[in-house]
């Protein structure tokens, strides 16, 4: 029997007054009311809609919920208790068939026995939003197709629904009714297994005297922080991996060092443990990376993906797919768990910051961003975007002085808290008459202060610590780029277009500064003028690509920074559709590929191939699969994009073949590395342009001659 009552049932501010009197039972089974409908009152509602959204935006449908067509993509269920208060809201994914609906209703009933519920399938208008901590999402009207609940994960053909790429297939059984409290732990366990297994392989500097590598640096910082007084941290021997990261890294190292010291005191004996390659130490260090990541990056990413999903009206299930893809990013896995670094801590704070801004809590965004900067100064890549956005929300749509002051105050306070232990520690050590190391050189910054500071002044030790920390953190004396990195300067220099040695380093730094400013300017202006949340990841991506390509003192590992916001876009509107997936996948695979020369040095070839190819496989991308480019959804990708990407993919494959089998000519021993750098730079440049272009297009700064509906998202 076809249901005939899809009209709005109630429109009132006080649902409690009306709802109990309007028990609406939808007849679910043919001809007879479903068992669930026997409950007389009060009632619960099952909304059928083309889309999730707020109650007022949900359109009544003219067909019942029990018809498994594409139209009923998202079903929102609300249950009310005796007073008509919303107790539970549940959203279900696309393409439910009726048996599933019934099943879920039972499940919900079973879990909330105190709520007398009755499910109906009518549609209500004007219900109050659920009591959620987040702000209610607003949905743009006009593009329901994009929001039809299928964010590009499912291909429908004559046979039925099919996963659009293999990653979807793995989550296919979790579609619809499976609680995210089952799905999420499974995802986190699976990605954790890949992380830990990657850690079985080599790390940077393993048995490579004299300097070893990043692993040794991190171990050394642990022994420095746990064995030396705090005032010595930034003064200790710079030559052997002196601490040159901001204070949060130092505190993190201290904490891990204390834990490690409980396990084995031999690991962190200052001077004696240098270059230690004990297997148990490796296991411990790997564990610290994973634990740090699971405490910071993974919760942040999970929440951020949910925020992005809410902004774009994406079902939880599809968000889980995006989350898995983000957490399996090959480059991040390989650098943190293979090469050995703690990037995910810094990236986690950045994601938390983005997530807070998306959630409408810019002050928390400031705190997290300061934490990211305080962990690794490379977070500066994002700083212009953060600054422009925060300034933008203080000025548009109207000037908001209170918010401005709040942001300024919170930021200053966060920095103060960040440096407080170092400063107070310096003061305390001076009080205890602990001298600085005899070899100490005073930081140049101190002498260049515009006022004279007496060594007797009570605040002198604090100023000394602060200036020394800044001196260590920002080593302006180093070169334009390190080793071989796929950015503009290295590409210009090494490819022989123009040798940069002939210029003065000051000139080069100024050139880098100028070019970087120029490259980040468009994104900053856009996000400043249009500080809307849904374009935030685009702005982050564009700015960090600009920095990566044009700035100074960039490592190849820094490609993780632009990759992060770009990969987060998978969780945003249309993120898993062929076009976006192709671009984001392209950037990630190219990024991973540019890391190959580094990973090869660390004996990480096999994990590189396994993780990169696995990710490509899961996302349906070349070189493993061509389904994204030539499959059912390939119509969404323009021919030019296809051609461009294919050229790059072929280039990467050819490069691997050449690198493996053809020795470079004696006169050009670095030929393959240079080739990698040049192709990488070109590809990243294109990614920069793509992100910037999309930022512009999605910002609606330009109306493109068409009448674009006024953005409804409330500007913060």
């Amino acid at each position: 029997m076809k249901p005939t009552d899809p009209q709005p049932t109630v429109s009132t501010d006080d649902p409690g007054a009306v709802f109990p009197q309007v028990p609406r039972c939808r007849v679910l089974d043919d001809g007879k009311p479903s068992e669930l409908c026997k409950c007389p009152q009060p009632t619960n509602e099952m909304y059928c809609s083309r889309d999730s959204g707020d109650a007022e935006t949900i359109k009544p449908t003219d067909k019942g919920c029990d018809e498994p067509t594409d139209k009923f993509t998202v079903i929102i269920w609300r249950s009310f208790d005796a007073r008509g208060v919303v107790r539970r809201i549940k959203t279900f994914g696309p393409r439910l068939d009726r048996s599933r609906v019934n099943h879920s209703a039972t499940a919900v009933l079973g879990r909330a026995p105190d709520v007398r519920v009755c499910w109906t399938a009518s549609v209500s208008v004007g219900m109050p939003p659920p009591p959620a901590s987040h702000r209610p999402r607003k949905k743009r009207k006009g593009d329901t197709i994009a929001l039809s609940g299928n964010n590009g994960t499912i291909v429908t053909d004559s046979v039925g629904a099919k996963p659009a790429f293999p990653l979807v297939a793995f989550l296919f059984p979790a579609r619809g009714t499976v609680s995210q409290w089952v799905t999420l732990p499974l995802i986190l366990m699976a990605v954790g297994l890949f992380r830990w297994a990657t850690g079985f392989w080599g790390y940077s500097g393993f048995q490579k005297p004299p300097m070893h590598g990043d692993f040794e640096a991190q171990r050394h910082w642990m022994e420095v922080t746990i064995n030396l007084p705090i005032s010595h941290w930034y003064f200790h021997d710079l030559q052997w991996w002196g601490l040159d990261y901001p204070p949060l890294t130092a505190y993190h190292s201290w904490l891990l060092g204390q834990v490690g010291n409980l396990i084995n005191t031999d690991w962190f004996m200052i001077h004696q443990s240098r270059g230690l390659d004990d297997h148990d130490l490796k296991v411990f260090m790997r564990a610290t990376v994973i634990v740090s990541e699971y405490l910071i990056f993974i919760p942040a990413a999970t929440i951020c993906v949910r925020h992005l999903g809410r902004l774009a009206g994406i079902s939880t299930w599809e968000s889980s797919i995006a989350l898995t893809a983000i957490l399996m990013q090959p480059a991040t896995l390989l650098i943190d768990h293979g090469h050995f670094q703690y990037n995910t801590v810094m990236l986690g704070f950045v994601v938390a910051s983005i997530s807070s801004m998306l959630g409408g809590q810019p002050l928390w965004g400031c705190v997290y961003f300061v934490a990211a900067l305080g962990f690794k100064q490379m977070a500066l890549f994002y700083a212009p975007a953060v600054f422009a956005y925060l300034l933008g929300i203080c000025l548009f749509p109207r000037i908001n002085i209170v918010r401005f002051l709040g942001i300024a105050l919170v930021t200053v306070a966060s920095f103060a808290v960040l440096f407080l232990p170092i400063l107070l520690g310096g003061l305390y050590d001076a009080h205890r008459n602990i001298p600085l190391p005899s070899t100490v050189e005073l930081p140049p910054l101190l002498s260049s202060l515009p006022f004279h500071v007496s060594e007797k002044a009570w605040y002198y030790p604090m100023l000394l610590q602060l200036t020394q920390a800044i001196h260590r953190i920002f080593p302006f004396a180093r070169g334009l780029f390190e080793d071989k990195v796929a950015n503009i300067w290295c590409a210009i220099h090494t490819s022989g277009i123009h040798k940069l040695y002939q210029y003065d380093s000051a000139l080069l730094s100024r050139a880098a500064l100028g070019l970087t400013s120029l490259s980040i300017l468009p994104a900053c202006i856009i996000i400043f003028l249009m500080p809307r949340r849904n374009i935030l990841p685009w702005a982050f991506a564009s700015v960090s690509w600009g920095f990566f390509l044009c700035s100074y003192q960039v490592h190849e590992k820094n490609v993780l920074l632009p990759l992060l916001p770009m990969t987060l876009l998978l969780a945003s509107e249309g993120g898993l559709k062929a076009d976006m997936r192709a671009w984001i996948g392209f950037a990630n695979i190219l990024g991973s590929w540019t890391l190959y020369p580094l990973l090869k040095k660390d004996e990480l070839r096999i994990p590189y191939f396994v993780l990169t190819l696995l990710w490509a496989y899961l996302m349906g991308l070349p070189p493993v699969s061509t389904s994204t480019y030539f499959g059912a959804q390939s119509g969404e990708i323009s021919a030019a994009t296809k051609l461009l990407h294919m050229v790059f993919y072929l280039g990467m494959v050819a490069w691997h073949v050449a690198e493996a089998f053809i020795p470079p000519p004696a006169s050009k021993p670095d030929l393959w590395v240079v080739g990698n750098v040049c192709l990488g730079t070109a590809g990243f440049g294109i990614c920069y342009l793509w992100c910037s272009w999309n930022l512009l297009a999605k910002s609606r700064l330009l109306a493109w001659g068409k009448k674009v509906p006024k953005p409804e998202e409330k500007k913060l």
Partner: protein
Amino acid sequence: MSELYPSIAQCAVLATALKVLLWPAYKSTDFEVHRNWLAITHSLPVQKWYYEKTSEWTLDYPPFFAYFEWTLSQFAKYADAAMLQVQNLGYDSWETVYFQRATVIVTELVLVYALHLYVKSAPQSSKRTSHAAALSILLSPGLLIIDHIHFQYNGFLYGILVLSIVLALKRSGLLLSGIIFAALLCFKHIYLYLAPAYFVYLLRAYCLGEKSIFRFQFTNCIKLGAGIVAVFALAFAPFVYWGQMDQLLSRLFPFSRGLCHAYWAPNVWAMYSFSDRVLIYVAPYLKLPVNRDAVNSVTRGLVGDTSFAVLPDIPPRMTFILTLAAQALPLIKLFFQPTWDNFVGALTLCGYASFLFGWHVHEKAILLVIIPFSLLALKDRRYLGAFRPLAVSGHVSLFPLLFTAQEFPIKTVYTIFWLVGFLFAFDNLAPA
């Protein structure tokens, strides 16, 4: 009916990625055992295979497995020829490790194929449940721990077993099923424990008439008998010809090993040993005689007899009688109702009986129970109810195989992942 996702192939790809990443993981002495067998089969004439004892890890699997090692050794020489020298004890260059680990992954394709066939031949109504069961076997933590970390070729061998079980699903496949099982016995004789179920099922369903057990299917008997004899001849005839059977059998059935393995498998004898241990302390109060010599040797089952201090010693014959007695009940039922479900049930129970009462049982033998049972677990909720505790305790009982800190997170997280994922899915899928 739309296709089922994730497909077996997709899961195999994902699992392979993880398995390759696990290559540098801890490996047990079984790795050296198999390297040694590669060396023996590659560098010595067949006559010497079962006499060679340079390494303490002598060849003690039946001839087909030796032939299998010989085949692998033909490829091994391209990876690293040094692993093929018998004198190179404990050799584990990274080429050797990668090669041997890769062979485990590649030969496991037999299991992938068998499971694919299983889902394909399942009736439409139980496609979904068969698919879930197949994935649970493919992704089994038991196989990951034993094969891909500890190092053995169980995926390959269980693949043959599943293939044989699946073929038995149709009457037309019974002959082939029996022959394949005979071949499996010539790969690894531990599967002898399952042989009674095969014997009864093939006898009843293939050799005797459907309607009356007295109508003897003579041609079928001849076919099956000839097939099995041919398989055994292929395996053992050369050794019979050279008069090496006594030596071969003494290698295959080393009764000099104790009742319990060095690590106690969680079976009846473990309880028995434990009771004995407790009785050592209690005996003086109960005025029971204590065998002083045995007090310090109860767990030393690796070589030599296990002796008990208080309880009577258990001779091998005793374990066999108990095993057969425990197997009898399901076999009787199978004889009178020779359906495929009863057959798989009988296999499971035969595996159980041998695991619980067998002589010198390894904890790894629990797969002999779990894998056949997985094929049946989704039949209905009663089966699932029995499967759940087995899945949890069976897999957890494998944990002591890996004792290194590095592998600890893999074994625990993977097992929890599997248990949560599959028990949840099974719970949703199992018919009421």
